[in-house]
């Protein structure tokens, strides 16, 4: 059965994440025993089709970045599987892992920390090429890097400069050029614009959009800014406390959110079009529970305005409620 399933999805899904878990052990006591787990990611499931952008939203600490890093295997997931291009990459190591990283690249959140201060920009961008194509001629490589710098909108003399000479937006462009250098199939963008000014944000977002068309890229776009995600994504996954609670295309999410958490999230987005009118605003009570000791059953039941008794005992699974709209909530069972 699984074989036929694979075949049918072959042309569609570039990345499939199934029940991914990333638990960080908490050590304590005199002998540093493991006394608990921080369940940063606790059973995340989604897939990304070739050429589309999946936005991943959620508040701070809900496991978005950890999910991204586990896919690239910068962290080793505790359980679950990651299938990239019909290949299970959850447990590959060594040379195979390096080969896969050629196809998945990452744009990082902090443009000030993600570039080595001791390297020239030219070296930063050419390094991935040097790592994978050892025999490439120096001149060819330089030409390629110049072209990349051009593509991301940097002047050619940036090649000989150091990262500290650039502004945040320009630094993020350098990071994008580095991620593009290997012509990857998938780019994981981990809050690429959250550290930038609003005016610069839109430039970088437009750049990402242009590059997607030009290089046939697929994005996993992680962010906490709903308007940014709406602008970028085809489909949106909403995360809460290490779980994906709803995945749907962006119009459904914005027009007709089904999960109570998504509804609360969407209602919090300021809307300029109906300025002056009273909006219905769902205000959640309480704080996000600690991921070290998540609530039983549905992770959201402690704050959910529609919670029922059975919510604390049954953990809902993602189910297709409407075509293309998957929700993990008992209300729709």
């Amino acid at each position, binding site marked *: 059965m699984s074989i036929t399933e694979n075949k049918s999805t072959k042309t569609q899904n570039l990345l499939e994440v199934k029940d991914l878990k990333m638990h960080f052990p908490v050590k304590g006591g005199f002998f540093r025993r493991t006394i608990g787990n921080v369940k940063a990611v606790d059973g995340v499931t989604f897939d990304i089709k070739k050429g589309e952008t999946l936005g991943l939203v959620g508040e701070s600490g809900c496991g978005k970045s950890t999910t991204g*890093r586990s896919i*690239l295997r*910068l962290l080793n997931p505790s359980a679950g599987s990651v299938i990239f291009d019909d290949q299970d990459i959850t447990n590959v190591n060594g040379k195979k892992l*390096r080969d896969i*990283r*050629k196809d*998945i*690249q*990452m744009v*990082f*959140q*902090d443009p000030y*920390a*993600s*570039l*080595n*201060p*001791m390297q*020239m920009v030219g070296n930063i961008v050419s*390094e*991935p090429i040097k*790592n*994978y194509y050892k025999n490439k001629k120096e001149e060819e490589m330089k030409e390629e890097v110049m072209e990349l710098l051009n593509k991301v909108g940097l002047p050619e*003399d940036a090649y*000989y*400069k*150091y990262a500290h*000479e650039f502004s945040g937006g320009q630094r993020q462009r350098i*990071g994008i050029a*580095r991620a593009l*250098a*290997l012509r990857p199939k998938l780019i994981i963008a981990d809050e690429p614009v959250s550290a930038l000014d609003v005016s610069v944000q839109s430039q970088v977002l437009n750049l990402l959009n242009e590059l997607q068309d030009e290089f046939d890229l697929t994005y996993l776009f992680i962010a906490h800014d709903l308007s940014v995600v709406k602008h970028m994504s085809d489909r949106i996954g909403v995360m809460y406390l290490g779980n994906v609670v709803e995945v749907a295309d962006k119009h459904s999410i914005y027009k007709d959110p089904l999960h109570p958490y998504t509804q609360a999230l969407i209602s919090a987005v300021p809307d300029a079009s109906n300025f002056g009118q009273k909006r219905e605003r769902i205000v959640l009570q309480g704080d996000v529970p600690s991921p070290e000791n998540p609530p039983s059953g549905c992770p959201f039941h402690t704050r959910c305005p529609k919670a029922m008794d059975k919510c604390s005992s049954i953990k809902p699974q993602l189910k297709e409620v409407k075509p293309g709209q998957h929700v993990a909530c008992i209300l729709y069972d």
Partner: protein
Amino acid sequence: MEVVHNKDTQTQSPTTKPSKSLSPWAMARRKFMRNKLAMISLVYLIILSILSFLAPFITTADVTLVNIGQMSLAPSAEHWFGTDTSGRDVFTRLLYGGRVSLFVGLSCTTIILFIGTLVGSIAGYFGGTVDNLLMRFTDFMLNFPFLVFVIVLNAILFGIVSGLWVLIGVLSILGWGGVARLVRSKILAEKENEYILAAISIGCKPSKVIMKHLLPNVLTTVIVQATILFAGMIVAESGLSYLGFGVPQEVPSWGNMLSASQQPNVLQNMPWVWVPPALILIMTILSINFIGEGIKEALNPKSFR
């Protein structure tokens, strides 16, 4: 008028010279050059090294030759700094002594830095069990009773290996613990930066991540530590030689020369025997420390000179 002129030069400058930016190292070098004290110290150290290195060409006297006919002579035109109780020329011994002291200091520092950086970076980067094993071993080495070890090793290896090499070996083997700890802590802090994650994700092997990304960024600390080590090793050599456990008696070193002052007669009546090595030793240590301070300042992005 001037403003227009300024504008002109500004637009022309990129075309006239390739606008290659200063690397962080080049900027540090500039800052260092502007630090007078550090530059004077550097010049002093270079001159001292050249003099010591060229000792055989500068003085013709035989350093080890004991001349009973010229014992305990005061400074004169023939013997600039006089002679010691065995009739050896103090100036000649000073130059040759510099050779030994600087050589011991330099080679110990090099070996210590190599071992310390290697152990520290591996422990810091890989963490976990590797870190635990390496750091417990480092603790073990740090807790070794230094003086006892030196004396015992000297006794065992006496006559088998040249005394100079025994000293270098012992000082190095017992000295790398501090550097290893320092490098480890720096690497631990540095590897949390996203550019290290980026380096891994663009396919760098662990060895490359350490060599190209981590070490250049912790090198500043290591260099400053190196100067302190260099001074410390020279002092250690002198101290051990003074006690008689350092380089063999017949080999001239500043410490050996100072040990002559253990005799009350020399200490009271023949200052020319022990004052020159003491002065040179102090000045050398001071200048090395000034250089270290200068490097530290130059590498600190927050300091402006």
